[in-house]
């Protein structure tokens, strides 16, 4: 059976593990460990290798959902994880100290993959901190010459939000293909 994958990335605590759980048909596999570094401040356990979930489609094929580890020191894994991926879902935690820096960092880190596929940005935790506003992400993406990237406010626990992000990702890659 055919195998496909969608990659979820973003900083620690942005909701990658939760977003994958929202879509997955299997119990998501998380390689969480007790954080021993500054990550402790954000969440006591964090993903140190990757998250994994799977969506089983009606023709028997599987879409694998991979979440990258949030800590930047694991970035050596990102190229491996993205190999053959359909596209990238970038989750940014609006409550972190500098979400614009996070956006720039991940857009740059995955530049090659994004160039070959597409990216959508989900901004989480706006209920905790509503500044910067969503427009600031659009402005930042303009500066990165990525104006056409969809940016949605999301609650990673909400399946509809994450599904819409994925739909936008597919629509950007090929709006006609989903007919």
């Amino acid at each position: 059976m055919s195998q496909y994958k969608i990659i979820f990335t973003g900083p620690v605590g942005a909701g990658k593990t939760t977003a994958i759980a929202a879509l997955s048909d299997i119990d998501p596999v998380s390689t969480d460990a007790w954080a021993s570094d500054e990550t402790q401040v954000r969440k006591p356990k964090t993903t140190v290798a990757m998250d994994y979930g799977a969506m089983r489609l009606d023709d028997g094929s599987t879409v694998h959902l991979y979440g990258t580890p949030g800590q930047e020191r694991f970035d050596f894994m990102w190229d491996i994880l993205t190999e053959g991926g359909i596209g990238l879902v970038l989750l940014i935690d609006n409550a972190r100290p500098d979400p614009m820096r996070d956006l720039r960092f991940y857009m740059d880190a995955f530049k090659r993959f994004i160039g070959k596929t597409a990216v959508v940005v989900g901004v989480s935790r706006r209920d905790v901190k509503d500044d910067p506003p969503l427009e600031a992400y659009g402005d930042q993406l303009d500066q990165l010459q990525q104006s056409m990237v969809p940016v949605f406010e999301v609650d990673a626990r909400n399946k509809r939000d994450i599904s819409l992000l994925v739909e936008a990702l597919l629509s950007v890659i090929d709006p006609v293909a989903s007919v």
Partner: protein
Amino acid sequence: MEEIDVRRFELFVRHVPGFACHIVDEAEAEVAIIDVDHDLGAYMVQAHRMLFPGRPVMQLSSAGKFMRDKHAVCIEKPVTIEKFVSALEQSLRESDAAGRQADVGEPAPGHRATAISQDSAELRKAQFYVGSMPDLDPSDVAIRERAYYQPGIYLQGMFESARRFARANEAMTVLVHRGAPILKVGADGRSYASALDSRSLRSLAMIPLAKDDVRIMAGSVVKGEAWRAATPLVWDLALWAARGRIPGGTALDATIRLLRWPNLTRLALPPDAVRIAGLWSCRPSSLIDTANVLAIPQRNVFAFFSACQALGLLECAAPSPKPQTRSRESVTADAEPQRRGLFKRILGKLFGMAHGDAEPEHE
């Protein structure tokens, strides 16, 4: 209607003898009940008629303000059980006569099964945003005029005027309709407050308003008012006024490009919005081409255009001197058939068959 009034009314209808009545979402109802003595009663009846043309409407009034048409069932207040039962029987005969009963199996004794299937309820929800206008032949000048509406005569345009007034005067602004304040706009034009519920606002937004009925003036903040971001309301007002049409003056063959994606997880989602946005963000297209390429009704494209236009998210380039209509085949020729099927299956998995009708809670 206030929540407590809904609960009281629910208690009342549950005890109507011989019927199993429930208050349901308006898209699923067999019969609507509208108090036409309400300030906006006439608007509510008209708006309901636009959304659900064949549905019987029980109109309640003590002042004889009934808006009679062939689907009106009038009840003089006070409403007694006997009057209600009689009106309900008449309404249900209307409903049956209109051939709206779906095959949902035998109802239990004493229970009337709902006549509205889930699918038709979904279709009706989609119609909230796009109406039911059939596709137009763009070469027929007379017919294509039907695609247009004038935002300025709807609440959409008046709210926009109030926002401009607020910004120009740096003052909290009130939009008054027939002497009653219906919307307040913050001094920066980015927030609003309203005492009206979303259904009343929708009723007002769907019907052209007489200019003399509306006034815009400086106001003041009242303690306890709930202020909300204006963006979702601007979006909704455009969808409700447009109902599958486009603002007057829009060239059907202009090339549309999306400048920014709307925040679709927090806005009402008209049918096919995500796919249209995807197309306009990577392959700017005319309105007619968009409908052709995506194989969707023009009204879905027009509705999304009107809402995006209201938020300033679009760029319309002048039509090319030699317009070439793109077909679906010309655009999809290079698409990978395998990928096409995959995307369809993923979306089917995520949303099921019905999609593009959900309304997020932003009010």
